[in-house]
């Protein structure tokens, strides 16, 4: 006997198909057109390997910074019931929706020679613009909020009863954070950090403005692709495919872990 569910309306299917096509076709195009004859040479050239290493290492470092400092932040935001906390939450999420150019201008206005911290950095003989550190900083700025939001959601959904019981036993805030909250939320936190890493990997616009473009020091994969586009579109396509596959991998991992997150009590 066939399943008892009514068939979904063809209209709904049709409309969904439109969006699926718009989202998926460009990626299919990349895959089919990006695997040309010169693909292997493009992928193994020193410039590519350099850019790949730079992208991976700066994203990893940015992720580390975000997780170490963002986890306590998300935890505190989730525990607090004060009104101004909601405003802080909005502020902290803002960089995600900023256009890359705005983010770039904002970072320059803060850490540049003529920026807010310019004189201080100058006095400490630190120049952030055009350095590898600038890439890490940019990634923290644009991708950090993604982690904070995910972690915040995870911490907010911990059963209040558990926390109350722990407190009644005499557990102090730090112990509860470390031994109860973190372990319970671990899958969700990992999922959020993978999302953050994927975003950091793909960061381009603000990085170009703030960190510049120097092979070996600041030329990340997206920058290499953009530069390649100026002279060799086929090469750009192949490199884009590589970045697409990397990002897809991170995203898939993130989703499968977040499914595992629905933990049994």
């Amino acid at each position, binding site marked *: 006997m066939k399943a008892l569910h009514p068939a979904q309306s063809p209209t709904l299917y049709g409309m969904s198909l439109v969006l699926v096509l718009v989202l998926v076709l460009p990626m299919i195009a990349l895959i089919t057109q990006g695997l040309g004859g010169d693909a292997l040479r493009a992928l193994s050239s020193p410039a590519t390997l350099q850019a790949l290493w730079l992208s991976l290492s700066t994203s990893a470092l940015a992720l580390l910074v975000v997780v170490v400092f963002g986890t306590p932040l998300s935890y505190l935001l989730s525990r607090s019931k004060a009104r101004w906390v909601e405003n802080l939450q909005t502020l902290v999420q803002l960089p995600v929706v900023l256009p890359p150019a705005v983010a770039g201008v904002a970072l320059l206005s803060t850490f540049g020679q003529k920026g807010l911290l310019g004189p201080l950095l100058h006095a400490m003989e630190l120049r952030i613009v055009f350095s590898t550190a600038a890439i890490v900083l940019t990634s923290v700025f644009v991708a950090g909020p993604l982690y904070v939001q995910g972690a915040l959601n995870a911490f907010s959904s911990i059963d209040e009863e*558990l926390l109350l019981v722990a*407190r*009644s*036993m*005499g557990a102090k805030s730090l112990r509860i954070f470390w031994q109860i909250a973190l372990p319970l939320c671990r899958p969700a936190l990992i999922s959020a950090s993978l999302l953050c890493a994927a975003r950091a990997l793909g960061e381009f616009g603000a990085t170009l403005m703030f960190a510049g473009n120097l092979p070996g020091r600041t030329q990340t994969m997206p920058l290499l692709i953009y530069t390649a586009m100026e002279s060799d579109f086929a090469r750009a396509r192949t490199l884009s495919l590589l970045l697409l596959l990397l990002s897809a991998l991170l995203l898939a991992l993130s989703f499968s872990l977040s499914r595992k997150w629905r933990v049994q*009590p």
Partner: protein
Amino acid sequence: MTYTFDFAFVAQVGNLALDVDIQAQGQMLLLIGPNGSGKSSLLRTLLGLVPITSGHINVQGRCLADAATGLGLVTEQRRLGYVPQSYGLFPHLTVEQQLNFAVQCRSAERSVQRASVRNALEQWDLISLSRRYPRELSGGQRQRVALARALIGEPLALLLDEPLAAQDVQSKEQVREALHDHLLHITLPVIMVTHDPKDAKQWPEWVAVMDNGQLRSPRPVADVLADSSARSARSWGFLQEFVAQTR
């Protein structure tokens, strides 16, 4: 062995008056009342989540809160054992780890901790279950773990919030019997919140009725039955129902 309860509990927002002196040893107080009468709020006030605006809370001679002097201990310092409605076992810790957690919060010495945990495991017959996770335990087993964990820190009193509400119908009776047995061996004051009359059947000693945020002094069930001056029709109806089923 007496309870002195002097409740004038008015659960209005920002106006919480409570006068509680809990001295009894080994006696249990049943807190009954219809849903919404404020039983959970009372527990939360005792635990320290809600500040009182007048009155005081003393447990076994220790002052937990005093509106007159402004004293109000935080939850962590009140030393009250608490078993919430669904037992509140940490899903990611084994039975032994649950007890470890509780004991680490109180004492610092490793050897003392280990001894306490070993003792508790024996006392509550949990040794064979020490490596199991809460999801692998039956309802009755979970109850044992929750009680063991609440008591391992040597609290001043034990608070139980609807301990049998989470049980499914088949095992409820069994678990109730087991709970009765466990509580017989406890010498601490115990306050149990419930709306199930069958719980009163087991412990028909001291009953306090909560009604619209008001709490009447605890007295034996017989007295409660005889009292016809119930404050609200709803409460009286509930009480009659309750008593009828308790018989």
